[in-house]
């Protein structure tokens, strides 16, 4: 590169050009470094996201081989058979948004409390929110079997006269498991955005005669919006693919698309149909998230702030 520039550099009247070239050179070097630094994540993205997705797409048009697994082919049969998993789709599409909503309703007050009302105990309380993560999610979910089964909460309810309450292996058990498992994921983003909340804004709004509800609606909520949007996305995306909680607390009776997938890959070994199901789930998820982000952009909230 030096060899290319040096002839010009000898002419004093060409110094402007020279500076420009140096800047250009610096810029192109910077760009190269940027590209180099992006390389690992690009490779990661291609190898671990795009490639598997392509494989699944190809598989989804194939046929199940005689002993299970994948055999080549070009058929739409797998997609036409999606109706046989309608129950799994409807369970997921009801319980995932519902779970997200309940998580949000439970997490918001907690996050507000942590961000605004705690003083020196804050780090301790925040740690307590994280503590459950120190134990395996599977074990924590399994523990709920004992809490929700006959000798747990239903026995307590029976002692106060509410007989024959069934919790375990019902959608309620799954919902409880979801809220329990995903609450921290909702609390933290909301906490982060509320922590920055300037309390003087609330004082000002109170001084100007706003009720507590008015302050919440017009000040706190809009400022917490980025956190809420992030939390909702985090929890919702994970819930759409959830299989562990329904498997453990649903007893094979509350079936998510995730469970149908596990079943297709690990029991009936119908990889092509499983792939079609997975592609459909990915598409539905993208559509829902697309619409959600559009709505968020339209009704307040700055675009991009809610992005992960």
């Amino acid at each position, binding site marked *: 590169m030096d060899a290319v520039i040096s002839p010009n550099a000898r002419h004093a009247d060409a110094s402007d050009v020279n500076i420009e070239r140096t800047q250009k050179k610096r810029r192109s070097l910077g760009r190269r470094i940027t590209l180099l630094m992006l390389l690992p994540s690009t490779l990661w993205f291609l190898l671990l996201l795009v490639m598997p997705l392509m494989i699944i797409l190809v598989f989804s048009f194939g046929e199940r081989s005689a*002993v299970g697994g994948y055999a080549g082919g070009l058929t739409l049969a797998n997609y036409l058979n999606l109706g*046989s998993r309608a129950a799994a789709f409807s369970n997921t599409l009801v319980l995932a948004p519902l779970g997200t909503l309940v998580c949000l309703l439970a997490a918001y007050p907690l996050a507000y409390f942590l961000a605004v009302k705690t003083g020196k105990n804050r780090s301790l309380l925040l740690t307590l929110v994280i503590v459950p993560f120190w134990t395996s999610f599977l074990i924590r979910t399994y523990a709920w079997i004992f809490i929700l089964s006959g000798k747990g909460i239903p026995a307590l309810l029976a002692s106060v006269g509410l007989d024959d309450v*069934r919790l375990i*292996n019902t959608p309620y058990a799954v919902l409880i498991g979801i809220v329990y498992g995903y609450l921290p994921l909702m609390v933290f983003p909301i906490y982060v955005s509320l922590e920055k909340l300037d309390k003087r804004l609330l004082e000002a709004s109170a001084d100007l005669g706003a009720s507590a509800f008015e302050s919440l609606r017009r000040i706190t909520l809009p400022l917490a919006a980025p956190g809420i949007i992030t939390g909702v996305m985090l929890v919702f995306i994970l819930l759409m693919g959830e299989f562990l909680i329904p498997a453990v607390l649903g007893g094979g009776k509350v079936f998510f698309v995730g469970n149908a997938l596990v079943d297709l890959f690990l*029991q*009936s070994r*119908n990889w092509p149909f499983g792939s079609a199901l997975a592609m459909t789930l990915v598409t539905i998820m993208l559509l829902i998230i697309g619409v959600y982000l559009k709505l968020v952009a339209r009704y307040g909230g700055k675009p991009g702030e809610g992005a992960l």
Partner: protein
Amino acid sequence: MDQKTFIKTMRSWQNGSITRRDFLGRTGLGIAAAVMATNMPGLLSGSTSTSALGADKNIGDRLGLATWPNYHSQENLDNFAKTTGARVSMSVFGSNEEMLAKLQAGGSGWDVLVPTNYTISTYVKLGMIEPLDLSRIPNFDPSAFQEKFMAQGTVDGKVYAVPKNWGTTGMAYDSAKLKAKPTSWKEFWAVAKDQADGRTMVHDYQLTAIGNALKSFGYSFNSLDAKELADAEKLLIEVKPHLFAINSDIQPSMRSGDAILAMSWTGDASQLHRDTPSIVYALGKEGGELWSDFFAIPKSAEHKEAAYAFINYLLDPQHNKLEVLAHGYPSGDKRVDALLPPAMLNDPIMYPAVEQLSPLEFGAAATLTSPLRAELMARFKSA
């Protein structure tokens, strides 16, 4: 190796960049110690276990086992680890289909499988298990087993698998909580919708769930007939809302009383009855499943020495006796039966009367790979 390299190697061992085994290997100290240990007994006494130094036959420090829930004596597993240095890491499954799928996907890390009779020919066909070198299992005596069980592990005259246990698939129910006394699969499904509504469990397993639904119509346990399967599906989907769960591990819920009626294998019934005497076991009088589980070694096994050692260890009649006492499945080995208490040999759960056994069928290989059965089961679960 000169002094400098030796010290350098020792430093890397001390700071953790190489392991103790590497250190011993690189410096030759391991061999030296082993030679000294064998030639000068007492010199290194108590310092290290002999097997780790290679004086004993070294089978590695772990063994991957794919098996079923509540199916081994913990005492045996502990003693095996103590005497050989190989710790057993166990994966338990709810169905043979699941076990096959995991092995098919690769990277399972298993050294010993416990497949059920009807899957063995498929494992052989897929080239996933290999004929056993019986000379490495001296505790296995083919003449101690009934021919009908031996035959299930033999393909084209080669022994691919040796018998572990046999048993039946029937129904377990808590006679203190269930008034009805079901004795047939027809009654099982009827009671599930009625007296045991919300308290019945069905295996998460196509072979038994579909098979026992088929039996209630009097069809073959192994039917692949489209019309017969449609009848079974209709029944299963009708019963589903009344079930407590679709799960092969019935014991926790039967013990807690959440479930009072369940599809059950011999050993689950034995163990439940032992701890809760009111839980009893019945076979369907239309028939049902007679099965036999085996030990097999997958081709992909990384610790074959350990696999042979483990199978041989458990087939030692004294050790196998502990297995049977723990899990309550008959071993099928005459030498083991001779060591069992008479009460156990007369237990109708473990050894049903001949006339009850005769209508039972072995599972058929075709059900394992049948897309019809697989899809039916999946529809039942996702309904």
